[in-house]
C-alpha cells in the first residue's frame, strides 16, 4: 500500500462537481475525464443508436412505404395510415380489445397489489411465509403458465368452473366465449399480484411508525390511518406502477399468442390484441410498412398516455418535502 501524500494542496470543490468522483486536476484534465465517461457509457450509446433510436426512425420512414423485406421500398405517403383508420376493421377490433384489457387490468391489479401490501404490513407471526406465497406466482411466466391457465379455465373440467360449481354457479366458457376471453386473461394477470405488492410493501415499510402513533392518539381507526397516512405516502409508487403497467398491458402479446393457437386471435377475434395484429402483419404477411405504421401509432398512444399520467400525477402524487423534482 502506497501512503497517500497528505501534502497535496486541498482543492476547493463546487457542490455540483462533488456529486461525481473528484479527481485531482493535476492527474486528470477535463478532457481526459470526458473521454473516460464516454468510454464507460459507450455500450449503452451503441445500443441506443443501433437498437433504439435508429430503429425508431427507420420504422417512421418505413411507415410511409410499402416495404415488405423482399422488394424495393416505395414511398406511398399516408396510405398505410389511411388503410389503418379507414379500411382495416381488425385494426379497430385489436385497439378496442387492448384498451378493454388495459382499462380493467391496470386498476384491478393496482388495487389488488395495494390491498395485499396492506395485509402484509401487519405484525403477524408467519408473515414472511405469506409474503413468499403471494410473490411466487409473480415470477412464474411463459408458456408453462399459459398452459396451466388454459387447463384451469377449461369449461367443464377446469378447476375454476369446478370451484364455481360448488356454489351452484354455472361458470362461463372462458377462452371459448368471446365475451369471456378478456376477463379470463385479466383473471390470469391477477394471479401475479405479488410483484406490485412487493413494490408497495417496500414503500410502506419505510413509513415512520410515529406517524401512525400520533394518529392513534387522536383516535384514528385503521381505515382513517390508511386513507390519511398510508395512501398519500405511497402515491409516488402508485404513479410509477400505473405508468409502467399501462405500458406493459398495452403490449400484451405472449399469452394471447399461445392461448389462441399461434396468434389467430381467438373466438370472434376477441383476443386479437394490438401487438398480435401488428405481429401478424409484420411476420406472417410481411407487410412491414403497414406494421411500422401500426408500431408508430402505438408509440404515439403510449407517449400521450404517459404525458397525461405525468400531468395528472402532479395533482395527486404526494412528495415529502413538497416538490417531487
Amino acid at each position, binding site marked *: 500500500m502506497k501512503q497517500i501524500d497528505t501534502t497535496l494542496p486541498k482543492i476547493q470543490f463546487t457542490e455540483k462537481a462533488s456529486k461525481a468522483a473528484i479527481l485531482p486536476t493535476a492527474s486528470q484534465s477535463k478532457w481526459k475525464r470526458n473521454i473516460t465517461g464516454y468510454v464507460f457509457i459507450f455500450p449503452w450509446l451503441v*445500443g441506443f443508436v443501433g*437498437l433504439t433510436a*435508429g430503429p425508431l426512425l427507420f420504422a417512421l420512414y418505413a411507415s410511409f412505404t410499402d416495404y415488405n423485406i423482399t422488394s424495393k421500398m416505395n414511398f406511398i405517403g399516408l396510405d398505410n395510415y389511411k388503410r389503418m383508420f379507414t379500411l382495416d376493421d381488425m385494426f379497430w377490433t385489436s385497439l378496442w380489445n387492448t384498451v378493454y384489457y388495459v382499462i380493467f387490468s391496470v386498476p384491478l391489479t393496482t388495487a389488488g397489489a395495494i390491498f395485499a401490501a396492506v395485509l402484509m404490513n401487519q405484525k*403477524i407471526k408467519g408473515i414472511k411465509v405469506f409474503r413468499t406465497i403471494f410473490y411466487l406466482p409473480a415470477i412464474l411466466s411463459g408458456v408453462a403458465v399459459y398452459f396451466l391457465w388454459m387447463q384451469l379455465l377449461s369449461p367443464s373440467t377446469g378447476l375454476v368452473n369446478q370451484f364455481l360449481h360448488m356454489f351452484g354457479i354455472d361458470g362461463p366458457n372462458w377462452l371459448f366465449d368471446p365475451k369471456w376471453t378478456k376477463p379470463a386473461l385479466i383473471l390470469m394477470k391477477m394471479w401475479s399480484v405479488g410483484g406490485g405488492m*412487493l413494490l408497495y410493501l*417496500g414503500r410502506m415499510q419505510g413509513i415512520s411508525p410515529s406517524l401512525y402513533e400520533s394518529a392513534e392518539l387522536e383516535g384514528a381507526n385503521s381505515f382513517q390511518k390508511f386513507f390519511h397516512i398510508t395512501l398519500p405516502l405511497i402515491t409516488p409508487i402508485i404513479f410509477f406502477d400505473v405508468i409502467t403497467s399501462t405500458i406493459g398491458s398495452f403490449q400484451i402479446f405472449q399469452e394471447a399468442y399461445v392461448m389462441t393457437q399461434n396468434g389467430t386471435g381467438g373466438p370472434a377475434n376477441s383476443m386479437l390484441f394490438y401487438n398480435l395484429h401488428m405481429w401478424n402483419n409484420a411476420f406472417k404477411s410481411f407487410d412491414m410498412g403497414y406494421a411500422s405504421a401500426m408500431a408508430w401509432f402505438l408509440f404515439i398512444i403510449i407517449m400521450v398516455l404517459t404525458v397525461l399520467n405525468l400531468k395528472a400525477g402532479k395533482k395527486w402524487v404526494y412528495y415529502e418535502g413538497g416538490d417531487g423534482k
Partner: protein
Amino acid sequence: MRDSRELKIYRKKEWNSKNLVVFLILLLGSFVLLTPLWWMISTSLKSTQEILQFPPSFFPKQFHFSNYIEAWKTGDFTRWSMNTLLIAVASTVGNVLINSFVAYGFAKVSFKGRNALFVLVLSTMIIPGFVTLIPQYILFSKLGWVNTYLPLIVPAFLGSAFNIFLIRQFMMTVPNEIIEAAFMDGASHFRIWWSIVMPLVKPALLTVGIFSFTGAWNDLLTPLLYLSDEKLYTLQLGLQTFKGSIQTQWNYLMAMSVMVLIPIILIFFLFQSYFIKGANLSAGMKE
C-alpha cells in the same frame, strides 16, 4: 387457562380480532394462489384415463411419475434445456457486466452532458418494445443473424435502461472518498470499477442477474421471431410446438410445464431476498 393468559401478556397484541381477520384473509389468499400450482402437479401425475374423468379428482389415484419421462421423450427437451441455459447465462453475464459498467460512468465520472444523457436513458423506458421490433428484425436479418443466438444475446451486452438505473441508484451510495483515495493511489477508473465498486454493489448486481436470467428463461417472443431450426429451440418454443403434437394430453403438458418452471422456482427460493431488494430499490425511486 392461566398459562394462555400469561402468554397473551408476553406477546403484545399478537392476536387481537383485527389481526385474526387479516390472518384469515391471508390464509384464504394463499390457498387461492397456491391451488393452481397444486393442480398443475396433481394433473401431471395422473394417468391418461384419470384426466378424462368427470368431475376431476383433486388427488391423483396413483402417482404416474412415468408421465415426466414420457413427456420428456416427445420432444428434444434435453437439447432445448441446454440451449435455454446457454442463452440465459449469456444474457445474464451481459446484463450484469455491461449495465454496471455503464452505471459507473453515470454515477462516478463527471463528464460533459452526463445529466442530459441520463435523462435520455430514463426516457427510453417508455418506448414500447414492439415499436423497435420490426426494424431490429430487419437489421439482424441483414447481418445474417436470423436462426442464430446472436439476436437473443447481443442486445444484453448493449445496456438496458432499467438495469442501468437500478445499479446506478446503488452506486450513488458508495462514498466518493473511497474512489478519490484509490485514485491518489494511482488506480485507474476501470480498476476502481472492477475491484472496488463492483464488490460493494453486489446486491444490486445479483438482483439484475436474477431478473435477467428468469426473463431470458421465460421469453418466448424473441426465440419465436428469430429461431426456426428445431435444433436451436429454447424450452419455451419447444413447449409451444409440443402442444400441437399431443393436443390435450394434459398430464404430459403439465409434466412438461412443471419441469420448465422448476429452475425458476429454485432460483426464487435461493435468492428470495434479492427479489425483495430489487422491489425495494425500485420502490425508492422518485421521478
